[in-house]
C-alpha cells in the first residue's frame, strides 16, 4: 500500500513536470500583438526613472502621432532589461519596438531576434559611423539611436584657477595637475575603476587614445594606459576607493568637493547644475600632444524585433526612423544632454548648448565598443576590468592583462 502511494506520487511528480515544461516552453504562436492590426505598438525600454522617463515619453508620443499608432509602453530598470528581453523571447512575446543599449545590439542581433532595417528601406547614411558600427551585425544595420554620449574630463574651475592650473591635455599634465590639486581630504582626480563594465567604459578613452586595442589585450599600449591609472592612485592623486566607485559615486565625490577633476559623462550635467562652484569640461587627455582623443560611444538605439507580424514590423520600422529624425534627435539631445547622432546637426547643437562643446567634439572621433569584436565584446570587456582591478591592487601593469586573460 505504501509502495503504491510512493509510485503514485512519483508518477504525479513526473507527469506534472512534463506538463509544465510543455506549458512554459511553447507558449503558442503569440507573434506580435494585435495580430494583423498594426495600430498599436508595444515598446520596451529602460528609462524607468525621472526625468528620463517623461522626456522619452514625450518623444515617443510625438513619433506615435506622426506614424499614426498608439503605444503600450513598458519600462524596466536598466540592469534587468536583457533578462526581460530573453524572457520575452522565450515566451514569444517580444515587444514591437525594443530599446537596447548599443553594446548589446550585436549580441541580440546574432540570435536572429531582430529584423534588419534594410528590410524596411531605412536610410542610415546621415548618422555617425560609430553608432552605425555599434548597431551593425554581419553587414546589416539593426537599430538607430537619436542621441549618444561619451566621456570627458570635468574640472572645478574655481579650484584650478586658485592654483593657476590649466585644464590638462596630456597625461603628464594630468598627473601634475592631479598631484597639485590634491590637498587635505580632497583628491586631484576621480574616476571609476569598478569591477564591471562601467570600469571598462571609463578606461577605454585612455586605452584607445594611446593606440591600444581590444583585439589584442596584452599589448604595451594597454599596459601603458593601465600604468597611468596605477600611478595616479599610487601618487595619492586618486583615491583607492576608485576601485569600488560607480560613475555616480565619482560625481558625488566631485560635487562634494572631494575631487577637483573627474572623468564622467554629460548625463551628470543636470546634477552638476546644482553645484555651488563653477565647473567646465574638456576632452580626455592624450598621452602625447597632438594625438586624437578617442572615447567610447554610449547611448541607446531603437530596434525592431522579429515578431513574425509583417504589418507591425513595418510600422515599427517607421517609428524607429521617426525616433532618429532631425527633430527628435535634436529635442532628445537638448533635453537629456546628449549629442545628436546626425553628423549634419552636431555643430548646430554645440552652438545651442555650449556646455556640451567638449562632448560634441569628442563624439566626432568616438568609437563603438562592439565595433571590432561584435558579440565577443563582453569577454574582452571582462578581461579589461579584471586587468584594471589586478593592476590597482598590486599586479604589475605589464602582467595584468595577461593574467586577466587567463581568468
Amino acid at each position: 500500500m505504501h509502495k503504491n502511494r510512493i509510485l503514485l506520487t512519483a508518477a504525479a511528480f513526473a507527469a506534472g513536470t512534463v506538463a509544465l515544461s510543455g506549458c512554459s516552453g511553447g507558449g503558442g504562436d503569440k507573434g506580435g500583438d494585435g495580430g494583423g492590426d498594426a495600430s498599436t505598438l508595444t515598446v520596451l525600454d529602460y528609462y524607468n526613472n525621472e526625468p528620463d522617463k517623461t522626456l522619452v515619453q514625450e518623444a515617443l508620443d510625438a513619433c506615435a502621432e506622426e506614424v499614426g499608432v498608439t503605444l503600450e509602453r513598458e519600462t524596466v530598470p536598466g540592469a534587468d532589461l536583457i533578462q526581460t528581453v530573453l524572457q520575452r523571447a522565450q515566451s514569444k512575446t517580444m515587444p514591437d519596438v525594443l530599446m537596447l543599449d548599443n553594446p548589446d545590439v550585436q549580441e541580440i542581433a546574432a540570435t536572429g531576434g531582430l529584423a534588419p532595417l534594410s528590410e524596411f528601406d531605412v536610410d542610415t547614411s546621415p548618422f555617425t559611423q560609430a553608432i552605425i558600427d555599434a548597431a551593425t551585425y554581419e553587414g546589416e544595420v539593426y537599430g538607430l539611436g537619436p542621441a549618444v554620449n561619451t566621456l570627458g574630463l570635468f574640472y572645478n574651475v574655481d579650484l584650478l584657477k586658485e592654483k593657476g592650473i590649466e585644464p590638462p591635455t596630456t597625461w603628464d599634465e594630468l598627473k601634475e595637475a592631479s598631484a597639485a590639486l590634491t590637498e587635505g581630504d580632497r583628491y586631484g582626480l576621480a574616476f571609476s575603476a569598478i569591477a564591471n563594465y562601467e570600469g571598462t567604459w571609463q578606461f577605454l578613452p585612455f586605452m584607445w587614445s594611446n593606440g591600444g586595442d581590444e583585439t589584442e589585450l596584452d599589448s604595451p599600449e594597454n599596459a601603458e594606459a593601465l600604468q597611468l591609472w596605477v600611478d595616479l592612485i599610487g601618487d595619492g592623486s586618486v583615491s583607492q576607493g576608485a576601485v569600488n566607485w560607480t560613475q555616480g559615486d565619482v560625481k558625488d565625490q566631485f560635487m562634494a568637493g572631494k575631487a577637483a577633476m573627474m572623468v564622467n559623462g554629460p548625463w551628470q550635467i543636470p546634477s552638476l547644475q546644482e553645484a555651488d562652484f563653477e565647473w567646465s569640461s574638456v576632452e580626455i587627455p592624450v598621452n602625447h600632444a597632438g594625438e586624437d582623443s578617442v572615447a567610447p560611444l554610449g547611448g541607446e538605439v531603437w530596434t525592431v524585433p522579429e515578431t513574425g507580424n509583417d504589418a507591425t514590423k513595418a510600422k515599427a520600422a517607421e517609428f524607429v526612423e521617426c525616433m532618429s529624425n532631425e527633430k527628435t534627435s535634436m529635442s532628445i539631445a537638448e533635453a537629456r544632454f546628449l549629442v545628436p547622432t546626425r553628423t549634419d546637426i552636431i555643430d548646430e547643437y554645440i552652438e545651442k548648448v555650449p556646455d556640451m562643446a567638449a562632448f560634441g567634439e569628442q563624439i566626432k572621433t568616438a568609437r563603438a565598443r562592439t565595433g571590432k569584436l561584435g558579440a565577443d565584446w563582453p569577454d574582452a570587456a571582462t578581461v579589461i576590468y579584471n586587468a584594471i582591478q589586478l593592476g590597482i591592487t598590486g599586479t604589475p601593469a605589464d602582467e595584468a592583462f595577461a593574467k586577466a586573460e587567463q581568468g
Partner: protein
Amino acid sequence: MTTTELLTVHPSAASRARALKPKQVVYAIIGIVILVIMLFPVYWMINASLQPSGNTLTAGIFPTNPSWAGYEKAITDQGANLVTSLIISVGAVIVCLAIAAPAAYALAQFRYRWISVALLIILIGQMIPGIVIANALYAAYNDLGLLNTHVGLIIADASQSIPFAIIVMRAFMMNIHPSIIEAARVDGAGQVRTFWSIALPVSKNALITAGLFAFLFAWSDFLFALTLTTTSDIRPVTLGIYQYLGTQVSNWSAVMATAVLSSLPAIILLLIAQKYIAAGAMGGSVK
C-alpha cells in the same frame, strides 16, 4: 500545585503588580545599547535621506540641515505602491499559513516513510536561484493571464515562503507532546478537528514566527514584482523604488526616503505580531 498556580498568572499582570526592579531597568538600557549598535546603519540611512545630496559624503553625525525633498517625492509617488505591497504581503501570509500549517503538522506528527524525501524536495526548492524560478513563472503566468494581478503576486510570493514555513513549523510542531494529541483522538476527534482545535492553538508561536517570515519574504520580494508585472498598475514598493534608480543617474535621497517610509507600516504590523509570541504556550497543558 503551587507551580501551576504561579504559571497561570498573566505575565503582564505580574509585572504590573510589583514595581520595576532595577534589574529590569538595566536590561532595558542594555537592550537600547544593542539596538543602537544593530540599527546604526538604519539611522545612517535616515541621515542620508535627509541630506540634500542624498549621500553622506559631507554629512556629520546628525543631520543639522534636513532636506525633505526626498520625502516629498516618496510620499507623492509611492502611496499606492505601499498599499499594494501591504495587500500582497498580508495575502501571502494567509495563503502561506493556510497551506503550510497542515503540511507541517502532517510531516511532524504523522509517520510516513516518504517524509525525508518530501523534506529533501522542499529543501532543494530553497536552493534554486530565484531567477530560474522567475523565468519559468513568466511564461506560465503569461498564458494564464495572471500577470499584473494582485492574486498572481500573492500566489508567487507565498510560494517562496511555503517551503520555509513547512520546515520551520514542523520543527516547532515536533515538540508537541504526543499525549495531548492522543488524548484528543481518544475522545473521538478526527484528524482535522485534532489539528484545528488542539495542535494549532498550541503552535501559536510557530504560526506567528512563520507568518512573520512569510510577510518579510513577500514584503522584500523584488524578483517576482519585476518579472510578473509589465505595467505600472500594480507595483509593489520594492519595484517602485527603482523609479529613482536610473542606469546613469540616481536620486538617492528619494530612494532612502522611500525605504524609511515603507518600513513604517511593516514595522507596526510586526510589532503587533511580536507581542503575541508568548511564553509557555505549551507549558501547563501537560498534566
